[in-house]
């Protein structure tokens, strides 16, 4: 069976490479193990080892989850130009982007599982033997769209790569419908994640129709930022050709998205602060502190400063075209959005509580360690996928000459 040989060859390829490559894998693996070890603490003691409380019942885990769904969705920014506009340069790297989507969804799902009080009961969600509260529960929606998105982003590259492996061109009519579905699905995963929050009138900070658009805009800024950096790393470390035009395209998308994202933030700030009602308490806490509590204040201003600086760099064309400046802007955007859409979005929703109590949250070392483990796992997954993808794309792996290829790098 060619399929089995394809998988076998791909997996082999994943674990082949120079010594630096193995050191990289090992380092990631060690962080993953460390995360698992700290997670075992959480399993034996309960979520009491986290900083979460009845007052702030979601914390660092869900913050990362919200952010990562955005990264996953951003892969669509490569999918659309590659498959719809048929751009050859983008097509070359689209599979790398989809690998990133798979890794990001994996991390997002792991963050939700890490947040569960009873991960042993996860099967309660399975339709049939469990009860899947779909279509009423937004969380059920999220599980559904994330799982399907995960499968789509596995299936499409798998088919395309498998065709390459067999030395054939992938059949357009076979994969194109799924590409179209995946496009809309990418938007849906992040919209549903935004709806997960905005569906709660109990939390005025989240309960805004702008949250969905804001999520998409910030995802389309932070996602390309990560892809731009990643593609440059791929270009540097491998012989794989990454066209500069792809990076230029992504930088342009990112610039626009960041403009829109910051405009949305501004709109939110205006609406809440012009007539500062009870609904503004959370945003007041976030930006200025409330009742003597202000642990997020420094973070959000930092994030805002990062995003604004990045925007300035991106909007001045000569600066954006300088690789160094572009990379600085990308790192700034990535961190800025991570703070803004992560802790900056999730935590203030709980402060003050619906009964007006102000109780602060700070992640514990267990949460930070588990999160580090999950991030390392995601990067590990991406590394392995990208390794196989690049090998196939370069024609190093093919069923016609497996023996010959096996011993060259």
């Amino acid at each position, binding site marked *: 069976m060619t399929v089995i040989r394809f998988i076998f060859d791909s997996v082999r390829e994943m674990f082949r490479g120079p010594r630096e490559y193995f050191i990289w894998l090992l380092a990631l693996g060690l962080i993953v193990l460390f995360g698992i070890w700290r997670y075992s603490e959480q399993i034996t003691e309960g979520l009491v080892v986290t900083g979460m*409380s009845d007052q702030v019942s979601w914390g660092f885990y869900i913050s990362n989850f919200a952010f990562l769904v955005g990264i996953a969705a951003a892969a669509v920014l490569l999918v659309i130009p590659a498959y719809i506009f048929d751009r050859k340069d983008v097509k070359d790297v689209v599979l790398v982007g989809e690998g990133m989507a798979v890794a990001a969804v994996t991390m997002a799902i792991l963050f939700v599982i890490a947040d569960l009080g009873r991960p042993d009961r996860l099967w309660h969600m399975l339709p049939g033997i469990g009860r899947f509260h779909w279509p009423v529960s937004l969380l059920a929606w999220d599980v559904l769209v994330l799982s399907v998105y995960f499968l789509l982003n596995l299936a499409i590259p798998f088919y395309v790569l498998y065709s390459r492996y067999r030395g054939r061109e992938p059949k357009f009519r076979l994969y194109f419908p799924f590409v179209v579905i995946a496009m809309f699905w990418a938007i849906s995963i992040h919209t549903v994640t935004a709806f997960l929050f905005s569906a709660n009138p109990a939390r005025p900070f989240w309960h805004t129709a702008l949250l969905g658009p804001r999520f998409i805009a910030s995802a389309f800024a932070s996602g390309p930022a990560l892809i731009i950096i990643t593609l440059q790393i791929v270009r540097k470390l491998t012989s794989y050709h990454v066209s500069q035009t792809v990076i230029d395209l992504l930088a342009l998308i990112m610039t626009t998205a960041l403009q829109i994202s910051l405009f949305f933030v501004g709109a939110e700030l205006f609406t809440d602060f012009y007539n500062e009602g009870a609904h503004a308490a959370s945003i007041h806490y976030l930006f200025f502190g409330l*009742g*003597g509590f202000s642990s997020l204040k420094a973070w959000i201003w930092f994030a805002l400063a990062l995003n604004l600086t990045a925007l300035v760099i991106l909007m001045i064309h000569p600066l954006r075209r300088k690789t160094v400046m572009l990379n600085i802007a990308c790192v700034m955007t990535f961190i800025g959005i991570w703070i803004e859409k992560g802790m900056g979005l999730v935590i203030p929703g709980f402060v003050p509580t619906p009964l007006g109590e*102000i*109780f*602060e949250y700070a992640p514990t070392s267990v949460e930070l360690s588990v999160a580090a483990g999950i991030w390392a796992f995601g990067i590990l997954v991406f590394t392995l996928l990208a390794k196989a993808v690049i090998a196939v794309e370069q024609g190093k792996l093919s069923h016609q000459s497996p023996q010959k290829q096996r011993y060259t790098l």
Partner: protein
Amino acid sequence: MNSIILQCMVCVISLVALQAAAQESPDSSQPLRFEGYPGASEFTVVPRKDGLFFYPGGQCHEAMEPNPEIRTLNTMHDAEIEHGRGRIWCLSCHNLEDRNYLNTLLNELVDFDESHLVCGGCHANRHKDWYFGAHGKRVSNWQGDRTLYNCTHCHNPHKPAIEARAPKPAPPVRAGLKREQGTEHHKSSIWDAKEEHEEQ
């Protein structure tokens, strides 16, 4: 057509009932039997007499001459009656002749177990709420037997305001976490700000 007949019948019946009630002149030698508010569910009242220190008061007062004069009491009773702030006197509620009974404003005798009838003379709205369960306290059940605490179980009739007492402990926070003391973040009242302004 039917409804008019029905209405007439209702009128006639209620007239008859009213007349009957009027003819039943209250017998002042018997404890008053208050028929209650129409529509209130049946209930019994938790007896009060067992809990009364001075009851039956007739034993002491038998030997004394009834004295209706308003004066400062220098006996074993509460010297001050805070209830009514000087507008009522012992005999507003207690019967002059028979200390084992209370009396209403109309001088009808009331048993100590039925003291709510006395209270209701002035506090008619509260009394009605108590009958229907919007005031006071019902014993143990929401369903089935309806037993109510009497007014005087909770309110000292000579000093009816409920006294302040210490609250139970404040809520804790989740094990392993600590509650930081915040600053007073609520705005002061509008009048506080105004007063401060005037002081300046």
